[in-house]
């Protein structure tokens, strides 16, 4: 009897491999598909990334560091950091507030509100800049008032911050809403019933629960805030050393045929992009639910799958 059982177990792998054989046959097909996908991604992802660094270092390391340490480049870096440091926290507070209201309570018009929060994603960055020109430009709705009070919004720092706030508006909210909805409100209710105050509940219970999703949203929001070009370009007025963010500095240098310097500044942004992707992969590894949370689009269906 035992030998019979052992015989059966030994037979089993043979049977499985027999059954698998027809699926193994098109091995060349599989290799062809992998090769086609990798060639496509190589052409469209790897080469563009590579060319940035090759062009930036094309005239040697000295020229590269010379371009990066140029005073105008430094002004652009400082402005970009300042804009991101202003826009990300503001959208963070909004994202947490919106997610708290939407995930923890039932109210009418909730789906409409979620759609409205996503609205900036459907708007071209150029139009995002245009709307603030129409409001605060010289001929805009509040143009006369602002001029009378010597306040500059458009072609100045406030306009850049506003345009950046607009294009990065949905990022953090849309990462937090599904995560907080999935977590429900039982944890918070127990904390309250044990005597914690509302703020204590938020800081001690909710925040630890959502910390990875929060970081994820901040990461994506920051990448877009630092890299935004179209909206900022429209409202900035390209005042050198004053309203040029890093992407705008790249454009100016490039249009002056100063390609090495343009690619040198671009290489800093490319490194930021790679850091963002690495951090994103780390967060997805910590919290697998975050996977497929696409940086840009609405992604409700796929979230419901995972």
């Amino acid at each position, binding site marked *: 009897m035992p030998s019979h059982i052992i015989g059966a177990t030994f037979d089993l792998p043979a049977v499985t491999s027999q059954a698998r054989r027809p699926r193994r046959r098109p091995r060349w097909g599989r290799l062809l*598909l992998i090769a086609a996908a990798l060639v496509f991604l190589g052409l469209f992802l790897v080469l563009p990334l590579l060319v940035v660094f090759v062009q930036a270092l094309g005239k040697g390391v000295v020229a590269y560091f010379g371009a990066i340490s140029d005073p105008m480049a430094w002004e652009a870096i400082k402005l970009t950091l300042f804009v991101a440091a202003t826009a990300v926290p503001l959208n963070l507070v909004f994202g947490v507030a919106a997610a708290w209201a939407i995930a923890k309570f039932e109210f009418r018009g909730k789906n409409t509100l979620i759609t409205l929060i996503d609205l900036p994603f459907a708007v071209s960055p*150029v139009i995002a800049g245009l709307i603030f020109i129409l409001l605060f430009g010289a001929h805009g709705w509040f143009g006369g008032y602002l001029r009378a009070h010597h306040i500059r919004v458009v072609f100045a720092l406030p306009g850049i911050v506003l345009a950046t706030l607009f294009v990065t508006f949905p990022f953090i909210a849309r990462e937090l809403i599904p995560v907080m909805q999935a977590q429900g409100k039982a944890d918070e209710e127990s904390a309250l019933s044990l005597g914690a105050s509302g703020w204590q509940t938020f800081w001690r219970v909710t925040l630890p629960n959502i910390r990875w999703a929060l970081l994820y949203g901040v990461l994506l929001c920051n990448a877009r805030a630092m890299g935004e070009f179209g909206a900022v370009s429209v409202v900035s007025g390209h005042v050198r050393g004053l309203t040029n963010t890093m992407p705008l500095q790249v454009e100016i240098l490039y249009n002056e045929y100063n390609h090495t310097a343009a690619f040198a500044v671009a290489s800093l942004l490319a490194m930021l*992009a790679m850091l963002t992707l690495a951090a994103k992969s780390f967060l997805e590894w910590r919290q697998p639910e975050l996977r497929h949370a696409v940086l840009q689009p609405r992604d409700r269906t796929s979230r419901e799958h*995972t």
Partner: protein
Amino acid sequence: MMAAPVAAEFRPHPAGRILPGFGLTLGYTMVYLSLLVLIPLSAVIISSLGLGWSHFWEAVMAPRVVASLRLSFGASLIAALLNAVFGLLVAWVLTRYTFPFRRLVDAMVDLPFALPTAVAGIALTALYAPNGWLGMWLKPLGIAVAFTPLGIVVALTFIGLPFVVRTVQPVLEDLDREVEQAAATLGASPAQIFARVVLPALWPAMLSGFALAFARALGEYGSVIFIAGNMPMKSEIAPLLIVSKLEQYDYAGATAIAVVMLVLSFALLLGINALQNWAALRHGGR
């Protein structure tokens, strides 16, 4: 004495809400949303109403505007179709096969979201310029990519690359492999299995990824302007025309194009929404 707290516990709030902060957070959300998004966006609509219908129509029907809208739509459509095909391929390869550096390749797919568009623009231009790494091979073949509408398609394909991959991937991961195995034991060829079993399940995700890539491509500006050449009537996209009208202080003309693009984008957004609800229903009802 005991009855009061118990009653309070069961009905702590008229609406049955136990957690605090509803009024504060919803109020803040509404104010912030209105100030930053709703009021500024309505400024475009109201400004265009001020134009009057005949001025609006005149501005939108100008040959240069029509050409730019046609180019934006045509190039975005081709780019989104390319992304639908290659996105499906990439998603399939990433979920079904194992190969070296698969994780790295998977992470790289999101690069177009993370890389600032201006950087993508100058990088693609450097690649496809006549003396670039790719342009030098295409030039003898008589194919010019940089500074032509073809260059616009390349830039828009880059920008939209992750959408179809990231919408199709989770559906593929969830797909019940037993159904495919059953089809195989019933004698279906791999091609038949793919066409009859796999593809029908992927359709909604593919369509929604396609629509997202299309919508993104329509409004894209930064990556396109470097590679496009920007010749009026030939290689000038609609967002660029808005910018050049603004630079000439033609606010009315810029607003008119913006309204056309906004209406079309919102129609797309609603379409995507409906599609995703339908797909979720279909998936849930399975």
